[in-house]
């Protein structure tokens, strides 16, 4: 055949992982910590913030989930999983010590090299805080490699806010400028959480140097347009605005075709796209 290729190991065969702990983040989102069943595998698995894994559960199938942990804290793979259907229902039945399969990492992840030295504005909505946690922890663990860190997070209500205790703790930190909001019902948390859409937190985003800032946005589809419009007001260049897109995925390797948008594979060219890429896509969100 015409094309040179390097033999790869079995691309579609998951390795077995073991759940070591779990806790509920919201009424329908659960946090899972997993480690490879065979210990030596710890070292094989490297990844970038923003990448995802295909998670297999015996008897239910396979689905993509963002890695919520940071590669700076090696060995443990963490996921925040929303209960929404067949596989995720089953994942919610898992107990500590139970096994699941993982393969990956897949996707491009955040362009860390390009982000070094820059001011970073992160905007999360709802479950978007899951992939963005990987980036957040990565930056916090390498704080000196980045400029300002601004993090805006909006959820429906305080109960729907992922990692709420962690965020409350970070409100005290001088390592980042963190602002939280909920659509409705901040009673009891008035001092920590505002009320209103996430766009409303942009009033705290000031003195942005557009040439030296990169924005990362991840949330439900409806959120993108509004948030990106806010960011554009700061004159950021379109290729410095990064968005995470979600599509149905059956392989993660650019083969099954399910994640195609126009001419891009979300699993290969994404899930992190620049806004400039996205403008050219017909079928965005």
């Amino acid at each position, binding site marked *: 055949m*015409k*094309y040179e290729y390097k033999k790869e190991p079995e691309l579609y065969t998951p390795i077995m992982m073991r759940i070591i702990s779990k806790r509920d983040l919201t009424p329908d989102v659960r946090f899972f910590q997993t480690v490879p069943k065979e210990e030596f595998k710890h070292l094989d698995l490297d990844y970038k913030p923003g990448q995802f894994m295909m998670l297999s559960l015996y008897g239910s199938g396979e689905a993509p989930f963002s890695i919520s942990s940071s590669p700076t804290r090696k060995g443990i793979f963490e996921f925040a999983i929303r209960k929404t259907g067949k596989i995720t229902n089953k994942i919610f039945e898992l107990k500590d010590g139970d096994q699941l399969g993982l393969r990956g990492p897949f996707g491009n992840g955040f362009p860390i090299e390009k982000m070094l030295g820059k001011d970073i504005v992160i905007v999360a909505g709802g479950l978007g805080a899951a992939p963005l946690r990987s980036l957040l922890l990565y930056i916090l663990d390498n704080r000196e490699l980045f400029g300002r860190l601004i993090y805006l997070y909006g959820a429906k209500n305080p109960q729907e806010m992922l990692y709420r205790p962690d965020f409350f703790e970070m409100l005290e930190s001088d390592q980042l400028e963190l602002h939280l909001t909920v659509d409705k019902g901040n009673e009891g948390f008035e001092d920590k959480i505002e009320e209103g859409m996430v766009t409303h937190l942009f009033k705290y985003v000031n003195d942005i140097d557009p040439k030296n800032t990169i924005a990362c946005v991840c949330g439900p589809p409806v959120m993108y347009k509004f948030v990106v419009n806010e960011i554009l007001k700061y004159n950021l260049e379109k290729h410095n605005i990064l968005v995470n897109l979600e599509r149905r995925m059956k392989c993660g390797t650019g083969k099954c075709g399910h994640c*195609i948008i126009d*001419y891009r594979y979300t699993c290969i060219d994404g899930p992190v796209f620049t806004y400039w890429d996205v403008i050219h896509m017909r*079928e965005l969100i």
Partner: protein
Amino acid sequence: MRVLKLSKKDEKKLYDVLNKFGEVWAPVPKGSRYVYDKIEKKEDLVSYNEFVRTILPIKKFLMPQDFNILNLSPSKFETPKVDIPTRVIVGVPPCEIHALNILDKFYTTDFVDNYYMERREKVIIIGKSSLPDEYLFSHKTNTSIVEEGYDLFFIDLGDYYLVWVGSEKGDDIVRLGSDIFSEDVPVDVAHDFVAYREKRRKAFTKHIDLEGVTDLMELMYDADFWDEFGEKCLSCGQCTMVCPTCTCFNVIDELELNKDEGHRRRYWDSCMFKDYSLVAGQHNFRESRAERLKLWYTHKLKAFIGHFGSPSCVGCGRCIITCPVEINVETVVEKLKG
């Protein structure tokens, strides 16, 4: 490149030579069409004069329509060990060899698909040129002539075939069959060859003009005809199944009854099916049939260029013959060109 001659009187001996390398597969008639089938006896290896368009293209040998990709158990996921026979596929037309080159590139880009490669390494391609029929338009997609991608390639020049050797495997075959493949290729065969090329070139009657369609796809994205086609389309997925460069698949897990084991199946899928792009919360990015048709044609005529440098339509004409409601490359291009 080596070129040899095979005299037609020795044609019947070809089967035995090929059979030493693996199972021999070739197009055989089925109703008014052809299918690739295993040839068990040398008498059954027939070379057809007309253009042979099998119902399914050779992609079915490389990515089976439905197969087991993993054995599952509660504590282990394992790639099944399967014995894939070597298959010598005889009579593959140029457009299909181009499709194969596209598949090779597709399955080795970014990630190398081990299931594809396992099968690819077990396929030997014996190509053959023939005169086009009324549906073939590979002259318009630059896929009517092959330069690579085959092991041997046959051109019928009357009482003999010219045989191009395109790979080491092909070379092994002609060495083993040295009593039928002759190195004696006098320069005057060039005349016959040029005459044949010319005759073949002129024999194409389906002229679908693809020039400029990538830009037209962009400009006509919101044209009304897409909705008209959307109304007609049955979402049957036939067009994608028969297209030699369509590769989409779906994956599901199945458990054995009363046993702690199961399988993960991969099977051909179609972007024409409604649930193809459903994501969480029942949000479907391509709810309407018109949207799905646009995706397909964007992918065939335009998107692939972005990824791989050329469109993925090889002009085989299958979609023209297959679609029950006449939505195909020809009718779409007609509308695009208004």
